[in-house]
């Protein structure tokens, strides 16, 4: 596998695919696909997929596995997913520690799993099943959440026990830690310090939006704010080099600003990590 440690990537979105693949307006080191948006398609977007894979190392970040759902895993979907991951030489596959399906209906957003022991057991079992079938480790993302739901244990105990027992990787979303620490009034550094950082496969960074005096929503539509950069800089000093991804889902008008975010992340990485490839 190509060494991606310390690389800085960006999520491939249809709105900016030309700018990423055909120009040098944005200079990521790798791309992240949401596989649901790219698998099983032909025509123009299939050509874009192929060109992206030719030009960049690729990771995938799933949206619909719904690891925390009460209902059965969707094995037809997982089989298609495996084909896509294999065909496109995907280096890392990640999913959210959340549920997106209830009563056999997809919801298309990330709902918080109750922090409970039975939910831990349930999710651990499902992660193992998926990893076994996909024949690759799964990296599980700590999601942002706006309210706990019938919690019987702490968030950090919930996340840590799942990652350890499932023997999976962790996708550490630093912005989500910041958002959750703000929303639920805990110390972000203390939280990160308790995570199994040796299991981090890569890091997500993003912007967010404060919608109420005491509530931040994880939107992926705004620039990263300074306190999140500061948390990122502190975090990377606690762990070994991994790939870092900038998430941006909309507001693509200011591409220069997005490029400067990529460069900011590269600057911080160069400052603290010895990386074995040449960042641009």
């Amino acid at each position: 596998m190509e060494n991606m440690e310390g690389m800085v990537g960006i999520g491939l979105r249809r709105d900016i695919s030309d700018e990423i693949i055909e120009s040098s307006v944005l200079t990521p080191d790798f791309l992240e696909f949401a596989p649901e948006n790219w698998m099983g398609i032909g025509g123009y977007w299939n050509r874009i997929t192929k060109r992206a894979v030719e030009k960049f190392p690729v990771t995938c970040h799933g949206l619909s596995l719904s690891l925390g759902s009460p209902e059965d895993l969707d094995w037809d979907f997982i089989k298609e997913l495996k084909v896509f991951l294999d065909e496109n030489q995907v280096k890392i596959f990640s999913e959210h520690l959340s549920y997106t399906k209830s009563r056999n209906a997809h919801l298309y957003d990330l709902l918080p799993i109750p922090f409970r022991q039975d939910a831990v057991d349930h999710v651990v079992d499902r992660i193992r099943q998926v990893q076994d079938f996909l024949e690759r480790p799964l990296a599980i993302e700590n999601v942002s959440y706006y309210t706990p739901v019938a919690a019987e244990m702490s968030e950090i105990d919930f996340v840590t026990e799942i990652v350890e027992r499932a023997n999976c990787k962790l996708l550490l979303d630093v912005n989500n830690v910041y958002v959750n620490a703000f929303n639920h009034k805990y110390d972000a550094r203390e939280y990160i310090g308790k995570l199994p950082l040796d299991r981090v496969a890569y890091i997500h960074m993003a912007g967010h939006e404060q919608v109420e005096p005491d509530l931040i929503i994880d939107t992926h539509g705004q620039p990263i704010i300074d306190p999140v950069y500061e948390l990122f800089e502190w975090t990377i000093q606690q762990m070994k080099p991994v790939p870092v991804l900038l998430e941006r889902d909309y507001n693509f008008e200011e591409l220069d600003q997005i490029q400067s975010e990529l460069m900011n992340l590269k600057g911080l990485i160069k400052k603290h990590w010895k990386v074995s490839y040449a960042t641009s």
Partner: protein
Amino acid sequence: MQLREETERIQNLLGDYCRTGEEQPIPGVTPGRVKHYRRLVYNVVRGNMDTAYPITLAALGEERWEELVQEFFANGLPQTPQIWKLPYEFYQYHAGHETGTRIGKPYLEDLLYFEWIEIEIHTMPDRPYPQFTSDGNIFVDRLAINPDYEIIRMDYPVHLHRADDAIPLKGDYFVLVFRAPETGHVHFLNLSAVNTYIFSRLVEEGLPLNDIKGDIARAAGVESGKYLDDALSTFIGDLIKKKLILGFLKE
């Protein structure tokens, strides 16, 4: 499954609220925060439908459209894990529930499918292309058809008129929808019943035009002669220009 019934019930309570918007007590949540989940979930679905169906939205108006999206999301139990396919389930739901008749917009099913088919043709998996050459005779040689197409039949000519203006024009309308090979763009071609018959025969039987010319003459009610040859030359020439016919099959 390792989940306790209580945990499953709580998860479903939150899911139900996000789908229906009907408030109900959910244990152990922070007051005032759950509404954001309903807003975020619904906005994703509504945005997806608005993007897929701009003509239908404009034809029905904001209020009626909102009702249709709400009804579908509350009752339709979306099955696809790929949200770009969700508009098809929206079409299926409202066609299956005869919503168009219920709301006095009988063209609804046609218009939704007309808009959906553009997404489907644009994104559908690549089909194998035939081996072809550009040298040949349209009457004698077998034609190589671009495989990325579909013919749709509609009761209302929503592709030719504003939706409400199409209501009194109920009939049989055919549209050939295809993907251009180089660009991947989707094109629409209004077809007469006779041209639909000709194209279908060419595709289904893969015969040279000369072999089916007699049938075409009978179907069109015309003599088999220069008039028909000229009409066929024009029709096939147009399809070649539009790259719906790629050329001539290599024998």
